[in-house]
């Protein structure tokens, strides 16, 4: 029985912790490998990231140059360039756009196959998404940052705290982004497909996560509201702020903590919505 | 209607050679095919996966440019005269819809009438005939995306015929269909062929399609024509044999031999026996059999085309091992 059990990926509270970790790692590996096969798409996407890196960087630098202290939103030129170029890479790690796996499986009815597996879909998709993020971290961040460094002076972190805090912040950004995307996709359980919500998401997430411009350029009241009331700044803006050392260390730690709170909330919401959806499927027979 | 002379199509593909290196390799998907198909003929075009069936069809319909050789359909050269040809042929790709996904069939047909510039009266008449033969009336107003595969295929057939094509090309028209839909499609095509106005070329995996519909069978393998003729000629050439199946009241006595035939199967403890007839007529075999045992029931089974074709493919395989999906 034990031998049979080991071959089926299972994550449940009743099982030894180590076995669950093994399963989670296997699922992550599958996410990683899946994205490793899209080599041409990776190259095409990287090229486009770089073009937009140039566009956004030049405009932001011109904005900063037009101010009295040559700073925009509290960032100097080096910080702005770093913000843009690392942001162009991080965008893919966080995976803001293009994830429709769940809603497609719901639309086609394939989701039933996920429900009969011994791993909760939220956990299984999270593992695969972390694998995807890992692949993006290795392939999609380097090129834009390299090009950015070649054409613009970039900021280098000066505090020892920055590196570990950035790593944590990126991980939280991926988890938070996953939670948001899961919720958006899960609307398909009720709507049949998630096209409308996905368009909303694509539109809102780019601008409110800080991809088009640093959110610090917004009026203070608006920026604070976004940070406290939505998970969106935690998806891109917070890790980038940490990296360019926009704020004093204590505030940075606070922002990452806020990011963690939101990541947990989103993940919990995803789990709750999934359970509701499953109950609904059981009652109504899909 | 259709002329192919020494028609060839080669593709260049990159294949992995080692971890990073990729090698260019040339593959002949169609390799010197010469065929002539007359008006009103119904031709089955068969072959294993990657034999070059689809590639040939694509060259005939103006989708692909031949690498060499000549091709003409309705007296036109498919690629340079694509739009002129399109008005005179109908094409059904089994897995690529011609219909508007979100619209009811009726609307798709109306759109196609505009695309092919068909006079209203002709359109009406053809549509009515198709509706009758294919029994479309029940789902003419349902969006295509909600149709079953069989219903959709009947819609596709109608769509391909509304402009009164002289040649109808069908690429796997029965693939994935249920038995009833297959039957409907076959009898419709059979009806179409009987009138003799339409030349019909169909590729298929399902040899039953061919047995029902086509008088002429072209077998292609590795891009070359390995057989062109009737089904009977195919059997004659490959020595296919009829079989005699008999249900007996009691098993045959041990050591029973039927001269000119081989026993190729026994079932139900010897209560059912099968003989493959080699050099004996069915009549003589039956006569010999009734002397040996009490025969309750008898049937003569025609040679199985699947077997013949399977044998044909395996023979071809051993010659050379290359293939490409066209």
């Amino acid at each position, binding site marked *: 029985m034990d031998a049979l059990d080991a071959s089926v990926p299972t994550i449940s509270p009743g099982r030894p912790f180590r076995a669950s970790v093994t399963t989670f790692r296997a699922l992550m590996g599958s996410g990683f490998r899946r994205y490793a096969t899209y080599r*041409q798409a990776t190259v095409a996407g990287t090229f486009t990231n770089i073009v937009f890196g140039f566009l956004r960087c030049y405009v932001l630098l011109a904005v900063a140059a037009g101010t009295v202290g040559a700073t*925009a939103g509290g960032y100097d030129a080096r910080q702005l360039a770093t913000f843009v170029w690392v942001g162009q890479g991080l965008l893919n790690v966080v995976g803001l756009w293009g994830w429709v796996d769940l809603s497609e499986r719901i639309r086609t009815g394939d989701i039933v196959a996920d429900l009969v597996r011994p791993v909760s879909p939220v956990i299984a998709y999270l593992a695969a998404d972390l694998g995807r993020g890992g692949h993006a971290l290795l392939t999609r961040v380097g090129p834009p940052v390299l090009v950015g460094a070649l054409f613009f002076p970039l900021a280098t972190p000066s505090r020892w705290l920055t590196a570990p805090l950035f790593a944590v912040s990126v991980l939280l950004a991926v988890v938070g982004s996953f939670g948001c995307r899961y919720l958006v996709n899960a609307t398909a359980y009720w709507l049949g497909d998630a096209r409308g919500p996905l368009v909303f998401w694509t*539109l809102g997430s780019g601008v409110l996560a800080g991809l088009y411009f640093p959110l610090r350029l917004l009026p203070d009241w608006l920026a604070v509201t976004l940070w406290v009331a939505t998970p969106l700044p935690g998806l891109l803006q917070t890790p980038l702020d940490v990296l360019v050392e926009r704020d004093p260390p204590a505030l940075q730690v606070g922002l990452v903590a806020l990011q963690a709170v939101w990541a947990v909330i989103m993940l919990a919401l995803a789990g709750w919505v999934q359970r509701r959806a499953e109950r609904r499927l059981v009652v109504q027979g899909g | 209607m259709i002329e192919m002379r020494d028609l060839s199509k080669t593709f260049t593909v990159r294949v992995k050679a080692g971890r990073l290196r990729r090698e260019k390799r040339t593959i002949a998907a169609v390799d010197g095919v010469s065929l002539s198909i007359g008006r009103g003929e119904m031709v089955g075009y068969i072959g294993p996966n990657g034999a070059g069936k689809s590639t040939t069809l694509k060259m005939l319909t103006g989708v692909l440019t031949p690498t060499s050789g000549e091709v003409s359909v309705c007296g036109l050269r498919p690629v340079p005269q694509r739009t002129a040809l399109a008005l005179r042929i109908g094409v059904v790709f089994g897995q690529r819809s011609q219909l508007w996904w979100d619209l009811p069939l009726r609307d798709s047909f109306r759109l196609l009438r505009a*695309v092919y510039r068909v006079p209203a009266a002709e359109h009406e008449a053809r549509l009515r005939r198709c509706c009758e033969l294919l029994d479309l009336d029940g789902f003419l107003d349902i969006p295509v995306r909600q149709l079953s595969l069989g219903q959709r295929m009947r819609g596709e057939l109608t769509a391909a015929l509304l402009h009164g094509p002289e040649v109808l090309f069908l690429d796997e028209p029965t693939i994935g269909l249920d038995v009833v839909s297959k039957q409907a499609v076959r009898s419709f095509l059979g009806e179409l062929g009987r009138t003799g106005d339409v030349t019909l070329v169909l590729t298929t995996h399902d040899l039953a399609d061919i047995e029902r519909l086509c008088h002429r069978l072209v077998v292609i393998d590795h891009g070359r024509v390995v057989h062109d003729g009737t089904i009977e000629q195919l059997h004659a050439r490959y020595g296919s044999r009829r079989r005699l199946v008999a249900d007996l009241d009691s098993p045959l006595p041990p050591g029973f031999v039927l001269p000119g035939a081989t026993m190729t199967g026994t079932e139900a403890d010897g209560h059912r026996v099968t003989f493959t007839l080699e050099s004996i007529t069915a009549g003589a075999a039956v006569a010999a059999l009734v002397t040996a045992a009490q025969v309750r029931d008898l049937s003569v089974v025609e040679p199985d085309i699947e077997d013949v074709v399977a044998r044909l493919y395996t023979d071809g395989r051993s010659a050379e091992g290359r293939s490409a999906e066209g």
Partner: protein
Amino acid sequence: MGELRAYAALFGGRLRSATAYRASFAVELVTNAAGTAIDVATVFVFYRTAAVVGGFTLDEALLMTGITAFAFVLADLTVGNIDQLETYVRTGRLDAVLVRPLAVLPQLVLADLPLRKLMRLAVGLSVLGVALARNDIDWTAGRVLLLVTAPISGAVLFGAIFVLSAATAFWWVDSGKLGHGFTYGGRDFTSYPITVYGSWFRTLFAYGLGFGFVSYQPALTLLGRADPLGLPAWAGYLSPLVALAAVGVAAVVWRSGVRHYRSTGS
């Protein structure tokens, strides 16, 4: 004549398909309009921080943003969905297009016409209207003509870029987002005064790809401002020529793309 009627029918079919899902069509209409609104809002955000960017005031920049918004939306609305070509090639649906008695490009364009982007047109037009009202333009016959030709030429140029980007799928099926760098990238490029960009990058996009003539040069002429980058005043009137040249290139590339597809298949 018959062919025109056929295209009109295809357009009608597209119209009916789009309205087949009424609710989600309405949602998409609104969100798409919001997309253009966000692009414009971004310009305001930048000018909140700095009064002058790249030597231009908000009102002046808004004129460029407005021309771009209108021109891009026009192109996106008409030929934008040609980027679906990738899917057509990958799934082999292009074969079904090739066996119809009509030209390939118009069929593809009409089959997928992104009507959900219709509301963007209103947003683009109103931005242009606001920009015109906020700038003190000395109207002459030439400038009125320019106001008409510039957005249309811009739309034609964007259309050509859409076709060029999509056509990469003939050679490289997974080209995916590659084209977005030039289509959406071109839109972003022309939303701001091109003086903000670094020199080689600006040369490539503004003069190499012709984006400088979409909004920057016409806006200068409308405003009566000399080009800080040195092009003469009549450069504002060049956009139709630039657009035609781009169309020529796109046509050649598209044709050879179709030819390539026919020699290799999917």
